[in-house]
């Protein structure tokens, strides 16, 4: 087994083995079709496809691939509003997530700082945050729809946001900001007294203390919050797109469910999972850079 460890094959082969086992399990559960050809009373050939198995309507891995082929092999094709290549859908979703996430960070960091710095602020708002935090995106979205019902925001660039877009962005922002808020607050509270003493002895002004001492000292905690927030923002996208019917991975998933094309649902699930994984990896790389501080 010497060569096995030498080429680090274990870190490569074992995951493959795991994936293989899961595919096998999937295949076992999935329905298989048997095709029988009979002649009817008029002598025409009739093909009858029968599904059977543990979950008769669940497509097998091979069928899933066959059905998703065009979406994966032409990832940027646009055939219709809700019939686009999978990466094109992903891109649309990512753009929406980025807007909501940016809003979450812009709101979350200052709120987190207030929460960490002021005991009064914490006493006032912490209970409210704790109550709002576990509310599901499915619950926020209708409220967002109501809030922005008649709103139409024209951006200077010429892009306009519709009510459903605003509602989606609002939902993503309000669901994903809590980890940033709470981690920033924890980070601010965890600043060693020594650093604050340095600021006091040097008589740094309030703004200077904030930017030269508080902010850099909190940065590692903040990035942990950012990473968790990004995970949630991506989680919310499906719910947001499902309910608003926007084109995107989630919207596509919902449409395909209504069209009873189950293979595409699996394609969407896998895409969401892989994209989420990549986003998390990227954020933890950024996070690791700030951990050393």
């Amino acid at each position: 087994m010497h060569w096995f460890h030498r080429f680090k094959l274990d870190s490569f082969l074992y995951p493959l083995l795991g994936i293989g086992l899961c595919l096998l399990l999937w295949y076992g559960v999935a329905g298989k079709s048997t095709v029988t050809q009979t002649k009817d009373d008029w002598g025409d050939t009739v093909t009858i496809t029968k599904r059977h198995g543990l979950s008769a309507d669940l497509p097998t891995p091979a069928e899933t691939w066959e059905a998703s082929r065009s979406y994966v092999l032409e990832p940027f094709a646009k055939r219709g509003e809700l019939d686009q290549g999978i990466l094109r859908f992903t891109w649309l979703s990512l753009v929406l997530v980025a807007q909501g996430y940016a809003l979450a960070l812009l709101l979350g960091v200052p709120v987190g700082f207030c929460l960490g710095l002021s005991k009064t602020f914490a006493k006032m708002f912490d209970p409210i945050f704790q109550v709002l935090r576990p509310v599901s995106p499915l619950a926020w979205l209708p409220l967002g729809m109501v809030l922005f019902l008649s709103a139409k925001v024209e951006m200077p660039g010429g892009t306009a946001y519709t009510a459903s877009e605003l509602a989606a962005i609002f939902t993503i922002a309000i669901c994903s900001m809590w980890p940033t808020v709470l981690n920033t607050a924890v980070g601010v509270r965890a600043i060693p007294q020594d650093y604050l003493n340095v600021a006091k002895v040097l008589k740094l002004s309030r703004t200077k203390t904030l930017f030269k001492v508080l902010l850099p000292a909190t940065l590692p905690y903040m990035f942990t919050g950012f990473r968790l927030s990004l995970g949630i923002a991506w989680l919310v996208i499906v719910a947001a797109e499902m309910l608003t019917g926007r084109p995107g991975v989630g919207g596509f998933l919902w449409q395909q469910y209504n069209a009873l094309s189950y293979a595409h649902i699996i394609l969407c699930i896998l895409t969401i999972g892989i994209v989420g994984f990549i986003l998390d990896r990227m954020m933890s790389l950024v996070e690791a850079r700030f951990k050393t501080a």
Partner: protein
Amino acid sequence: MSFLELNNVHKGFGPANARTEVLRDIELRIEEGEFVAIVGYSGAGKTTLISLVAGLIRPDMGKVKLKGVEITEPGPDRGVVFQNYSLLPWLTVFENIQLAVDQVFPKWSEEQKRAHIDKYIATVNLTPAREKKPSELSGGMRQRVSVARALATEPQILLLDEPLGALDALTRATLQDEIVRIWEQDKRTVVMITNDVDEGIMMADRIVPLSAGPNATLGPSVAVNIPRPRDRKAINHDPEYKEVRRQVIGYLLGEGGKQRTAVSRKLILPDLLPEDLSEPRTLYGTKRKPRRRSETKREQVEVEA
């Protein structure tokens, strides 16, 4: 009027019902240009004492005065070297000092500031480590940065809070010599806190022992009249050295070493008031309870341990 004066300073911590008096009746006078070492037990309140001078905390009673002006808040005229270096880990050596210099000399040109910072980095022999982060430096080097940062603000008085406490014995000796060398360049007033009597004798003009806490107070100060530069190897046989050491240790182990345990007891005095009959009875029983004129009284008892 002395340069630095502490008059009848008291300081305690904790809420009123469980208060620990840390320092009591601190009287200290330090002249300009003097190097004073305050030697005492760990936990006696040495850091509290230096924080009082730095202005990070205010005394409960008494006054701390620098050049006759009462100290009410921290300020860069008192350079503090903290026990645990207190360098900002995301800044390089240069930037750590720059933060202080920018603050104290805002009107200087960039050139002037850079030359000033580089001068102090050179003073503590850290020029090669100029662009390094504190995490890349050894304990001794970090402490030197901390000293350089304090010096670069050109304070009127330098406060060293166990500056060498976290270092190994050899690094300690080198840094002791280095601090004395830097001090001799411009004879700034220095107050150093230490728990090492020998360190005090090696470096200071005068040693003030601090008795064991709680309720610590300063003992009689002992002048160190050993000529400088003091030779680390020969000093052990110096009769003056032996005498100073005997006096300081004598105080610390004798009179100053006695643990004065202050016990706060609640004394409940029998001063019951007559029951208030106008108070109605309720469903849950009566609200009438014995009331006392003064629920509690306190008494401070000093016990010799």
